[in-house]
């Protein structure tokens, strides 16, 4: 099994009365809440945390893309990935990912990801989300009725840009380019592994199966809520005649490890309540741009007797403007798994088995968790949890969706001559 360390880069200084005083953490969040001097410290600490995770043995470090968002300070995850790719490490760099329809032309994504793949020596995982309504339709003004068609076309363009050997013209419905010819090419051939983060639509599962891509279910609501979705995914793979290779799937889970469960309860209460209370406070105004959810998915949801209100909303349940959940509820519902290393290891093995997921993406920093605690959580996980769970699925299944970097000895080592400034 692959253990991947995922950072959302939440702004850590949202005020305590954020829910009461502000309508939304996303799209129209007040600029007055953003202090660039504090963000300077946060960004650097977050990069420290990612570098530490790569150093202590996680299989990958993961970054993602959000816009106008108080819990995700990475409008451009490629910038962070670029910073990480300078460190010599075997950890994969998972950009989870670039919302393809937002880039004009989308060859920009092909270029930047090829750069990251070259700089890192072939360690890139290329994630391509459609993107949430908040990011794409509101913050980036994309037409919800055209978003998916643009996304699919941009995907085709990026893959062709990576794989075709001669300059070519691309005459798409939305993109017209006379000369597509990216420099550099990606190091991994024919291209870096492509993963698709999704929210549980059947069309996405079918597309991942057809393209042989990893489907990654990125929910903030843990393994209990994820069961139904992942069961649906595997039923669909069965129906399509695909094997049950757990490496076809990724799954996101919040985790807090401490010496004892009692200590974990003490340490992780505040960051968990901060995340689920302040960070997921999204105004329902931005939940449902018409056309974002396809008519086929709407109809399937109406037919499957999910309430119409739920079917009509593109916003995952759990987001909202009601009161935030208590820590007890967060733990009871499995949003965050906490405990001693042995307890957490047991639970994660169970989750990986039950959901049949070979790529576990872990949020070990969440909410306003300070760097020291994030380090401690990461260290304990690496030393005492990781060895217990890593062997899962070994020998049974091959991970065909993992980066194939250059051999260590062929990789460049950052090196600058020593220099002392004359006083």
């Amino acid at each position, binding site marked *: 099994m692959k253990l991947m360390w995922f950072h959302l880069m939440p702004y850590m200084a949202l005020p305590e009365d954020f829910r009461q005083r502000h309508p939304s953490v996303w799209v129209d969040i007040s600029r007055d809440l953003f202090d660039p001097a504090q963000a300077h410290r946060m960004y650097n600490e977050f990069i420290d945390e990612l570098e530490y995770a790569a150093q202590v043995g996680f299989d990958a470090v993961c970054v993602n893309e959000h816009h106008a968002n108080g819990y995700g300070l990475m409008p451009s995850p490629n910038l962070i990935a670029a910073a990480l790719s300078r460190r010599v490490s075997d950890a994969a760099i998972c950009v989870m990912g670039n919302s393809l329809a937002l880039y004009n032309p989308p060859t920009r994504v092909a270029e930047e990801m090829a750069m990251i793949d070259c700089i890192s020596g072939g360690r890139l995982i290329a994630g391509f989300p459609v993107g949430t309504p908040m990011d794409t*339709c509101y913050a980036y003004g994309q*037409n*919800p*009725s055209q978003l998916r068609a643009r996304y699919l076309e941009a995907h085709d363009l990026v893959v062709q840009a990576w794989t075709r050997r001669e300059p070519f013209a691309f005459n798409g419905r939305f993109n017209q380019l006379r000369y597509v010819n990216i420099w550099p090419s990606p190091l991994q051939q024919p291209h870096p592994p492509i993963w698709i983060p999704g929210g549980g639509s059947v069309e996405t599962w079918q597309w991942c199966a057809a393209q042989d891509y990893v489907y990654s279910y990125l929910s903030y609501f843990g393994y209990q809520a994820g069961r139904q979705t992942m069961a649906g995914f595997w039923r669909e793979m069965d129906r399509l005649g695909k094997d049950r290779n757990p490496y076809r799937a990724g799954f996101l889970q919040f985790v807090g490890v401490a010496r004892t469960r009692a200590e974990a309860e003490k340490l992780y209460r505040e960051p968990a309540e901060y995340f689920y209370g302040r960070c997921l406070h999204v*105004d329902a*105004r931005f939940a449902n741009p*018409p*056309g974002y959810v396809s008519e086929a998915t709407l109809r399937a949801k109406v037919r499957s007797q999910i309430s119409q209100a739920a079917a*009509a909303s593109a916003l995952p349940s759990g987001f909202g403007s009601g009161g935030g959940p208590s820590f007890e509820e967060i733990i009871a519902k499995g949003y965050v798994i906490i405990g001693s290393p042995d307890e957490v290891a047991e639970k994660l093995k169970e989750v990986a088995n039950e959901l049949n997921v070979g790529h576990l993406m872990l949020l070990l920093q969440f909410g306003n968790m300070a760097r020291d605690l994030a380090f401690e959580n990461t260290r304990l996980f690496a030393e005492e949890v990781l060895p217990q769970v890593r062997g899962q699925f070994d020998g049974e299944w091959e991970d065909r969706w993992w980066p194939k970097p250059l051999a260590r000895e062929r990789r460049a080592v950052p090196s600058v001559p020593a220099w002392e400034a004359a006083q």
Partner: protein
Amino acid sequence: MSGAGDGPAERMVSVNGSPCRIWEKGRGEPVFYLAGLAGLPRWTGFLDALAEHRRVVAPSLPGFPGGLGHDRLDSPLDWIAATLDLLEAAGMDGADLIGASVGGTLAAEVAALAPGLVRRLVLIAPFGLYDESVPPTDVWAQRPGAEAALLCHDPAAFEAFVAPPEGADPGEWSIARTRAAEAAARLLWPLADTRLERRLHRLRAPTLLLWGAADRILAPAYAARFDRAIAGRTEVVVLPGAGHLADLEAGPAAAAAALRWLS
């Protein structure tokens, strides 16, 4: 059907290979009608009042109730061409045209670009312009339940307009409503500025501008902006007690003003 008398006759035409419904009622000189944000989920009292004097022809734009094919239309030019196809398929050839809201912006476009098609024009709170001092309200970023009070001065008027008729499948009805919202968004997202203003100097047909005094989406100030930009003779009539869907709420007054202008 609401309103007095029998409902309209129905036939289907094809636009870009997709079916679009034509509703028709009344006798006499024809007047064509393109509906607004929610389309025409049912016949209205406004159309009945017109049909007492004229043959009213109401084609459904792609994606609005009775029409499909909005997902092929990527640009304002695609929408204008589809509107021309639709009006021609409905038999329009030098006739009067009324367009409301979304239908209003497309009615203005065809009158500007195909002047032979349109004799006289009535625009009811048309979209298409953008004034940064009073930007159009973002109808696609609203909390659940806010729509009715946004579109109509009296929310009950809107609720009754879009309520599923007896025997309709509620799931399919709600999908059709979402489709209408998507079709409007497809043309107007994100600012409802289609750059129509650049073409209004070509609009030479006599044009009546009707506006609900309580329009919460396009402030009545837009009437003056259209009034200034349209090349032909114009008149502005503000209807008290009506919101954005002014012909729905102030049916008799709107119909009287339109009939006066068109006769």
